[in-house]
């Protein structure tokens, strides 16, 4: 119980620190932020904006205002006329965030669905030709940048064979009903994860299969499939799940790139556009939201962890 409270406190501190960092970013920009936001505005408009953003206040006061607005959903709006002028950042965010989360979910599910059976079978058949080939292929995919894979998938599957749409540019698409748009991005994102997960699970599985309780299960006359998936998989999956949880961060990063390549209306694309259009106010919020999502997911993974493995739960209780 005490560890849970400690974790919760830690979580809150990290959330505050992350928002502080996202906020401070704008301070890294050389010169007056207002000049970047509305370079061609009149002095009166600039002064008004400076006041709206509390830029004349001391740094921490600015942060406090920003944080309060951020958590109440008042994240400001896009400025200028060039790109989405006047659109509320939080509106944009509420459309983009679910999209990215669904994309990451798809990629994670695909990666685990392929990697778990592969990892189990390669561990079971360790040392065989199948195992060797799977490992070599996985190692190769680890060295293949996801954007290269995305380009080739786009050109062959989408353009040359015309099987799937290439880009969602300018379209309002839903990640669920317009699933045809999601297939190539999901594959591009998932492939490298499959390699990572498979290799992790394989090495943990090999260690588990040497355990005495596997021999016990064998001596019960239980079939191999059941031993592999019921007895060996769960004790072996701890590292995999931790890494899968931590990897959500890597996936968010990967999703940004993939969303830009396929022009999907997610967080990454929105952030990309915000940076391109010098929308610093939006950029601050996007980065903060991405970081918070990441921290929350890690927190949940950490809690799930202790539920999953009674040994850990036990060790925590004893500590």
């Amino acid at each position, binding site marked *: 119980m005490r560890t849970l409270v400690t974790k919760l406190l830690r979580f809150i501190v990290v959330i505050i620190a992350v928002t502080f960092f996202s906020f401070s970013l704008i301070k890294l920009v050389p010169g007056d932020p207002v000049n970047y936001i509305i370079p061609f505005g009149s002095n009166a408009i600039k002064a008004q904006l400076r006041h709206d953003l509390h830029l004349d206040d001391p740094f921490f006061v600015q942060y406090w205002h920003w944080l309060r607005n951020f958590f109440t959903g008042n994240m400001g709006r896009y400025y200028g006329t060039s790109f989405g002028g006047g659109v509320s950042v939080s509106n944009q965010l509420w459309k983009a965030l679910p999209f990215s989360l669904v994309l990451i979910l798809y990629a994670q599910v695909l990666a685990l669905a392929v990697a778990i059976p592969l990892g189990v079978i390669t561990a079971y058949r360790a040392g065989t030709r199948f195992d060797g080939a799977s490992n070599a292929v996985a190692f190769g995919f680890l060295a293949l940048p996801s954007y290269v894979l995305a380009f080739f998938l786009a050109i062959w599957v989408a353009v040359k064979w015309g099987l799937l749409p290439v880009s969602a540019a300018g379209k309002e698409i839903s990640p669920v009903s317009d699933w045809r748009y999601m297939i190539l991005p999901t594959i591009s994102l998932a492939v490298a994860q499959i390699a990572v997960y498979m290799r992790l699970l394989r090495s943990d599985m090999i260690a588990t299969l040497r355990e005495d*309780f596997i021999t016990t299960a064998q001596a019960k*006359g239980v*079939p191999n499939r059941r031993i592999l998936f*019921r007895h060996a998989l769960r*004790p072996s999956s701890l590292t995999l799940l931790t890494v899968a949880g931590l990897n959500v961060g890597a996936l968010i990063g990967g999703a940004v790139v993939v969303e830009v390549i396929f022009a999907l209306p997610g967080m990454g694309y929105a952030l990309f556009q915000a940076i391109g259009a010098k929308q610093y106010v939006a950029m601050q919020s996007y980065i903060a939201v991405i970081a918070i999502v990441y921290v929350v997911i890690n927190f949940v993974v950490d809690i799930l962890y202790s539920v999953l493995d*009674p040994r850990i739960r*036990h060790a925590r209780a004893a500590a």
Partner: protein
Amino acid sequence: MWFRRRKRRSLESADRFPSAPPDVPLLEVDSAQTSFVTDRGTVRAVDGVTFSLERGRTLGIVGESGCGKTVLSRSVMGLLPKHNVVRSGSVRFEGQEIGNWAPDQMRPLWGTQMAMVFQDPMTSLNPVMSIGNQITEPLLYHFDISSGYARELAVALLQSVGIPEPDRRLRQFPHELSGGMRQRVMIAIAIACGPKLLFADEPTTSLDVTVQAQILDLLQTQQRERYMAMILVTHDLGVVAGRTDDIAVMYAGRIVEKAPTRVLFSQPRMPYTEALLASIPKLGDAAHSRLATIPGRPPNLIHPPQGCKFSPRCAYVQDKCRVEEPPLRPGPEGKHEFACWFPVGTPEGRAAFESNKKAGVAAVEARLGGETVPVEGVS
């Protein structure tokens, strides 16, 4: 679940494995050999073992660690990995040859015909599976019963192995139980499907001394109540004393002496057995009396010594022993078999011992409880 789609057998057909005629022993092992292929050569872990066992009887297999006793029991049960392992010889169960069966053929037998209790209950139970699921698993797999009924059986099993509050235990995980309790759970799992043959592989080695006797008693009562044959593998002669019908002493992959328990303890013939017995401390010994030891170490099984494998450590060793390996043969008393050219308690043996004593052979001095002279390995 997809893996539940399997052929289920009814309760009665658990005995579908054909029973042999009454005069055929339950288990017959004939010149069994098991070798491991390693980078450094072939390890002959079991090197020509022959014995038989009838239902309702218990056999103790005793030897130092590394003598092949665990490999023997796993080999008989077919629980060894198939890669880099070479098995030969014959294993007949209920009169049927199973020595060359693949794991898939053996699987219906595991649990229902033969089962095993392992050495370390800390590591032999799945840490992330509840006790209840671990006990009902073989029941559900082997018999066509409902999971509710399986849980009832599990409660009854836990009760019969002496675990209090069995209902509550079913929901617990292994780490919530003490070592002794876990070994009781292991026994419950092993006997769940009513096997005819139970292997107990060092069942008490990793337990507290106070618990050891309880577990051994439990194994004994279960064996009698269920009319099982039992093979009790141990390095500790004290464990088998008075608990088994027969004892086989193993050394370097071979049985070197086999006799009814009482006979073996009173009249050991093989010098190795005698040395093992002498190394057990006795209540009658004076305080601070030096224990007899066996000098040296078990031999290298990749390049075993020529002749009798115990010869480098033997107090009775003669030139013949270093050249020619003695066969396991019955002595004059009939059921007592041993593999020795100069058996203990015979005129030849006494003469050999005396001549070695004069010559100052190290093993004699260690045997007499004198200063231990280290004899370096045999390689």
